């Protein structure tokens, strides 16, 4: 009998055959597919648990979500395990093919796709463990912030210009940014929609923008318009000066006269003002801009009428880091080249009557 003549495989050979097995690949891929199918619906109907999945890397999100609802997130590690085992199985197939490449070189395209898939799995794991996602960070033009988790880096917004349609719909957000590493300029770029700054695994991209109340424009009879913001100094007479100590966009005064901020929105603005002369401070108090100017200021000869608020525009920037992004790009390129080669070899093999074709 032929089976008796065939030398029996060693345990190592049988394990290797199992690792390279096509049926194992189909079983693992099917399990991962079924788990992710079910999981995607669990994800959709439990946004409170899964909404943070996009904002965090997997190694940070998963322990938090697990602490909240282990049964609902169980599919994530299970499907991850299946994909990982599937990746190992693909790697075994690739190594097996490499040993037989002389006879099977026509399958280069197909095995480039395998290699690319393995690289993508490794890249995702790498990014999920060693990366971070942060933001959106509110940055004003001229401001510099330290990067989260990377204190050697800082990001400066040199200039910001939002581009709007006549209807007011945002078209683009143009950020001129510079990235500094240990005090040295590492990169400078114009960051806008679909044009991020990519450096050392970092991706810096615009998310949105907004405005913050900076001050007010006032009309002073006989002197025209003056702009006042926190820190502004306004000469009232040769001896007296008005200083703006603080500006609140929405404030209220309680029964004991204490003034507190209610919200960030412009509603009931108030300024803490100080009037000083050669002998020192003459008066300090709050001026609610919806009310008349405080009596002490009127007596000092000051006449101010607020005409319009002054805003300062800020940019919201997202800063992510994925150390595996270059590997993912290499993996993608392998797959793309593999697909093109596989298309050629498919038709060539068909023309030669070679089956199975792929």
């Amino acid at each position, binding site marked *: 009998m032929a089976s008796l003549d065939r030398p029996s495989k060693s345990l190592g050979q049988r394990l290797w055959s199992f690792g390279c097995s*096509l*049926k194992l*690949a*189909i079983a693992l*891929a*099917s399990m*991962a*597919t079924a788990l*992710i*199918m079910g999981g*995607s619906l669990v*994800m*959709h109907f439990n946004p409170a648990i*899964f909404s943070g*999945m*996009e904002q965090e890397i997997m190694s940070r999100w998963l322990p938090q979500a697990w602490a909240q609802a282990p049964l609902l997130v169980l599919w994530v590690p299970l499907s991850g395990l299946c994909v990982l085992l599937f990746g190992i199985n693909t790697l075994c197939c690739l190594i097996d093919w490499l040993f037989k490449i002389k006879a099977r070189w026509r399958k280069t395209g197909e095995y480039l*796709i395998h290699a690319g898939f393995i690289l993508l799995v490794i890249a*995702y794991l790498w*990014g999920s463990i060693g990366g971070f*996602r942060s933001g959106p960070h509110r940055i004003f033009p001229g401001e510099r912030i330290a990067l989260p988790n990377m204190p050697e880096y800082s990001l400066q917004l040199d200039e910001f210009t939002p581009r709007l349609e006549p209807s007011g*719909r*945002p*078209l*683009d957000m143009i950020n001129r940014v510079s990235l500094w590493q240990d005090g040295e300029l590492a990169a400078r770029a114009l960051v806008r*929609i*679909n*044009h*991020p700054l*990519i450096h050392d695994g970092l*991706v810096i*991209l615009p998310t949105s923008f907004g405005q913050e109340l900076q001050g007010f424009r006032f009309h002073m009879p006989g002197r025209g318009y003056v702009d006042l913001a926190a820190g502004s100094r306004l000469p009232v007479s040769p001896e007296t000066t008005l200083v703006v100590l603080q500006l609140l966009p929405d404030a209220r005064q309680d029964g004991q006269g204490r003034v507190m901020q209610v919200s960030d929105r412009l509603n009931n603005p108030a300024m803490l003002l100080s009037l000083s002369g050669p002998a020192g401070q003459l008066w300090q108090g709050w001026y609610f801009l919806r009310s008349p100017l405080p009596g002490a200021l009127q007596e000092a000869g000051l006449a101010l009428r607020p005409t319009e608020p002054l805003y300062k525009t800020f940019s919201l920037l*997202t*800063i*992510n880091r*994925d150390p595996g*992004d270059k590997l*993912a*790009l290499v993996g*993608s390129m392998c*797959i*793309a080249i593999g*697909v093109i080669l*596989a*298309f050629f070899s*498919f038709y060539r093999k*068909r023309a030669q009557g070679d089956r*199975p*074709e*792929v």
Partner: protein
Amino acid sequence: MSKTLLNLLFTIYATATLGYLVHLIWRRAILARTSLALVAAGVLLQTGLLGHRWWVAGYLPVTNLFATLFFFSWALALIYLYFELRYRIRATGLFVMLLNLVLLGGALPRDTRVSALIPALDTPLFSIHIIFSFIGYAFFAMAFSIGVLYLCQARLSSVMLPDLPTLRRINEEAVFLGFGLFTLCMIAGSLWAHIAWGHWFSWNIKSVWSVLVWMFYAGMCHAKFIRRWQGGVYAWLSIAGFAVVLFTYLGIGLLLESNHPLE
């Protein structure tokens, strides 16, 4: 886009479908040839309409349900033409063109206006992603049609339909080409996501199901090596795969919600 031209296009495809149906009953070669000519004329007209919309908009206008159904229908008709000219699968055209009529019929009552492009979609990667995506879908739709016909032929053994080995070859080819093109769509989508949102893999439900579509058809490219699955099981898998495609394309948008930019 002119509704008259759209109705004309639908009429051309409907007449071609009717021609294939009558050909199935009367078995006149002229009917199949006329139907093929009508499909070719329809594809030409649809290509012209699509090109005109692209030229007017300044970008590939596939950003709403009308436009995606229209593009899907165009890709399916084009791919049918490819298989028809390559394999002369005449009677098969009936089922494929019926599916095409469903797609185009779904597009007809919708708003044909080209909407303003949202800034995140303003990149060539978006156009590449869309083109490969819908041509991939069209190949999967072709594989679905051929899978159904394979199962019919396995029961009927009709002389009007191609033989089982031919249907199997076409099915495998459609799955393989669809998988390859859908892979390129996924790569373009990942590159785009990386530059637009700062991560190349997104956990939004549409992206997750796109990965599932990719894994399913990757599995099918392997499944044909399993002898017992060749033919019948493979045909059933083609049908199941297209159900996954339909859920990813239409089901998520209509039944669920997603933050994918095309939702």
